[in-house]
């Protein structure tokens, strides 16, 4: 069985989630604190989308934060992320409508091979 896991680490600044695919049946670990590095990591196998009532708040203590992996159906699925309780998918992000400097509404530009880094800044000033 192929499961896609989310490995999350929280540095002192924010939360970062990276995904990887592995072959395992069940992986569910609780958030553990590494006192030396102040980094935390865990992985959660997708059981079902509704299986976890976890939330990720970008500001909570690590112990209170659960960042959910809900990615990867058997046979290879799409990997997403869950931020502040909201499931985020790359395909939804690719449909974002934004405004360019010429006041035109445009869809988020993307490279032909769909390798994109999207940085959300705060306000301009």
């Amino acid at each position, binding site marked *: 069985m192929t499961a896609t896991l989310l490995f999350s680490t929280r540095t002192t600044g924010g939360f970062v989630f990276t995904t990887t695919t592995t072959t395992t049946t069940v992986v569910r670990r609780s958030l553990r604190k590494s006192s030396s590095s102040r980094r935390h990591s865990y992985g959660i196998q997708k059981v079902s989308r509704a299986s976890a009532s976890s939330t990720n708040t970008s500001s909570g203590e690590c112990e209170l934060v659960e960042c959910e992996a809900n990615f990867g159906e058997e046979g290879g699925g799409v990997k997403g992320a869950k931020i*502040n309780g909201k499931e985020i998918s790359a395909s939804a992000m690719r449909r974002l409508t934004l405004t360019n400097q010429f006041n035109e509404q445009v869809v988020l530009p993307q*490279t032909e091979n769909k390798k994109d880094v999207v940085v959300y800044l705060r306000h301009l*000033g």
Partner: protein
Amino acid sequence: MSSKRPEIQKLGGDITFISVSPTAEKLRKFLELNPEVPADRVFVDTSKTFEAYKAAGFGNLTDVDKSTKPEMKPPGFSLQDWWKYITNVIALSPIDPNEKLTGPPEGVLRLGGTFVLNGDDIAFAWADAVPGAHPEPEDVVKAARDAWGSASA
């Protein structure tokens, strides 16, 4: 992060920046003040409801749990940068001139984050815990390299 664009491009990808602004005019002003920023890669969410930010799940500064002490990185401004900032902060602020303020404008409170997309996968996601708590640019490049490298193999 914009300084990492050449590395990202070398990996076959590109960067897009999104910000909050009620008007495109403020974006033009920003680009005028920051010519090093690639104008064709910067966009703004002009919606009053911050739809692009909501779509990414990012929160507000008011949601921050004050019991945590996330690391905030200083902007690394020179004296000239600070002057530019102070003299233009109002012109660039996310405040709609036609809107009556009854409290802090929400655009000021919006938090950002960073994603690395690989096709229809999200390979890396970061939510800023507080303003200035960005991911290390090198970590973003590494995530891109890991995701895209394996994808193109």
